[in-house]
């Protein structure tokens, strides 16, 4: 029953900007999605949990290890896989060499075992055929898979993925979702994304972050349910709608408090997400 990650009251300020404000959460095995608009603090939260940046206040543990001390931080890092938002790669390394390099930095010191593990993760992300090719000669999507393999090497219990599908074409995104779903079996994955489809397809749980604060913590279905009875269609954009947009059929989809007799629609995850942001006072673009 012990969560993989337990965080209490995490706060972080950049100068006068409040990036995180008293964030508390518990993460359990499976894929947890972290949704939020730009500037919500998603990357900051991921960097704190990945021990890349220390919080001003608050504590957290990963599998019982407190990273505030050097020894605890090392133990957390041994259990961590991290895919930054813009993962760097060494273009003159082969895919195998790069992942092997990361494996060494993860203190996998037995050469034969390490090489087996590197081959395993490259197979897992579908790169067995290109492991001897230079990273610089691979396509953007393939390079992203190399970075994911580097995050996965060493079988980390806690995987932090910062917008892993951004910039990928639909086919690559689908492929990546499959990989992340596979990675989420038996380990705890925290995935930040702008894409509600990512969350809908991958996550057993979703956190909505806005202005450095957790605004929602529940299942994707619960997030979608927040919009139940608050989504309707109309020929023109409804004046009282909190948000609305023209659909492909020419009508309008409206969010908010529907007028009596409105043509209610089945709510989606995105509807729930936008209403949650609206309730948090965050400007909703739609």
């Amino acid at each position, binding site marked *: *029953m*012990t*969560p*993989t990650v337990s965080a209490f*009251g995490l706060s972080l300020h950049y100068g006068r900007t409040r990036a995180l*404000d*008293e*964030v*508390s*959460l*518990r993460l*359990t*095995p*499976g894929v947890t999605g972290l949704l939020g608009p730009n500037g919500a603090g998603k990357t900051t939260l991921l960097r704190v949990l*990945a*021990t*890349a940046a220390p919080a001003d206040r608050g504590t957290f543990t990963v*599998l*019982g290890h407190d990273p505030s001390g050097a020894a605890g931080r*090392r*133990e957390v*890092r*041994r*259990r*961590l896989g*991290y*895919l*930054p938002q*813009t*993962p*760097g*790669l*060494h*273009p003159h390394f082969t895919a195998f060499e790069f992942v*092997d*390099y*990361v494996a*060494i*930095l*993860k*203190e996998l*010191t037995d*050469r034969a075992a*390490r090489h087996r593990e590197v081959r395993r993760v490259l197979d897992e992300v579908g790169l067995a055929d290109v492991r001897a090719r230079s990273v610089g000669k691979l396509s953007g999507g393939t390079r992203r898979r190399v*970075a994911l393999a*580097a995050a996965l090497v060493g*079988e*980390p*219990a806690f995987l932090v993925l910062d917008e892993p599908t951004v910039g990928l074409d639909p086919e690559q995104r689908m492929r990546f979702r499959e990989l992340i779903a596979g990675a989420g079996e*038996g*380990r*705890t994955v925290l995935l930040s994304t702008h894409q509600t489809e990512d969350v809908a397809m991958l996550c057993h*749980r979703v*956190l909505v972050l806005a202005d450095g*604060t*957790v*605004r*929602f*913590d*529940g299942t994707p279905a619960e997030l979608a349910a927040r919009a139940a009875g608050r989504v309707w269609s109309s020929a023109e954009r409804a004046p009282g709608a909190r948000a609305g947009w023209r659909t492909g059929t020419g009508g309008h989809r409206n969010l908010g408090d529907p007028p009596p007799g409105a043509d209610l629609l089945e709510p989606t995850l995105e509807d729930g997400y936008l209403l949650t942001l609206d309730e948090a006072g965050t400007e909703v673009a739609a």
Partner: protein
Amino acid sequence: MSAPLPDAPLPDAPPATADAPPGAGPRAVLALARFEARRLLLTAPVLLAFAGYALWIGWRTPSSWDGHPALQDVDRAAQGPPLLVGLAVLLGASLGVLRSHRHGTEEHFGVLPLTPWRRTVAHLLSVVPAALLTAVGVAVQFGWEALKPGAVGHGSPAELAVGPLSVLLFGAAGVLSARLARSPLAAPGLVVVLLGVVALGAGPDGTDGLSWLAPSVATGASTTFPSELLGRPAAWHVLYLAGLALTVALLAVFAAGGRTRAVSAGLALSLAAAVAGGTLQARGAAPSPELTAARERATLAPEKEQTCLRRGTTTYCAFPEWEPRTATWAAVVDRVRSRTGGPAREAPLLVRQRVEARYGPYDDSAIPPAEAPHQVTVGTSWGGNRVPEFSTAVAAVFVAGSESAGAELCDGRMVTVMWLSLSWQDDPVDALRRVRVDDSLSGPATVLAPTEPLSMTAAQTKVVRELLESPPPGVAERVREHWAELTAPGVTTAHAAGLLGASAPAPDEPTEEGEACEA
């Protein structure tokens, strides 16, 4: 604002990864060092440097020192090329450290268990194989020279260690520069600075204490000295280099965040070693009174330092390190003597090794000719042109009676001297060319010898060349038969030519010396 924690039962957390086994960090450092070492050795500058080094050894060593190396010179000569390897390693190591910065992987690597300072240690250790390869290069070069049949003397392990230590020092400097200035221009800039420092050590004689701050000091051409007269503070220099390399390495670790007690203590110790070595080497750079006395003794009274060996009527006295070479000298003496006539065939001869050591190995003062009769000087170098030069000196003593008298020969006796000196050689005409200072085969010329040079007129050159190129029948018998006339002071070149069966030359253009000699 705090979010509500989920109330639903939580799935079990994944099984905890075992805590880091003891020694995992150091083992990871070694694994990373191996990885980085392989990449370092495969970088273009390092590959090129080692290829150039190997080619240099393969090209230079077979013909170096004319096959007769003195190992106390070889050890210093092996220090130069490793400096170029070191500069390449500096560039490569710096690029290795900057790689994660240049390609944006710091964000990721920064959250991995192996901390930046341990990664820095790995980069520093990655330089070690390059230093070991350099040591192999030095060993091959030195071993090759030592195995030559004509090798004499002793190498100094301290001098031999300078090359590999320089590679370590430069590699550590590359890592430090990358840790301090995350710019790819830092290392090339440092290379320029180090080239200046290397130039500082390339001074004329290394007696300036400051010049010993350079990695390699005064390794250029010098007079070969007995080992004990070199007076180089090589051991202190090794302490200085090792201390400096370790200091630079630990500074890099310190800069990368490795501010542990062990690193601080190591830094203090290595700095102390560098300062101690630097101070003591500076003191040792100037000759001590004992060394000065020893050099004077070796110059003015070498008999006190030498051991002598008698072969027939010839005695060979050499500094101890050159004893194995007396047989080579004897072969020359015997060949020259076998062509003489009269009393010279049985006359006693003393071959004494001499060196002008009073002004240090980088002074090129000539040794004055020996005044004593029947004594000839042999130097500390051998092979190549030194052989006909010595042969000429031996011949001159047989003809003129003493080295000092031989140095003043200018009459027709020079024909006999040069024939005795060169006729036995494999390629006498080539030997004639090589023994003349201007490499000419006609006209007047200065003829080199271990002490003061001799001189040949144009007519003498013509006669000698004819005797060597197309010797008339029975020249050797004529020399023996007419020995007294050929070695009589004042004999003219034309008369000597006639006695030896060569064409009489046209008279020389009158010169001051010629007129005096041939009048």
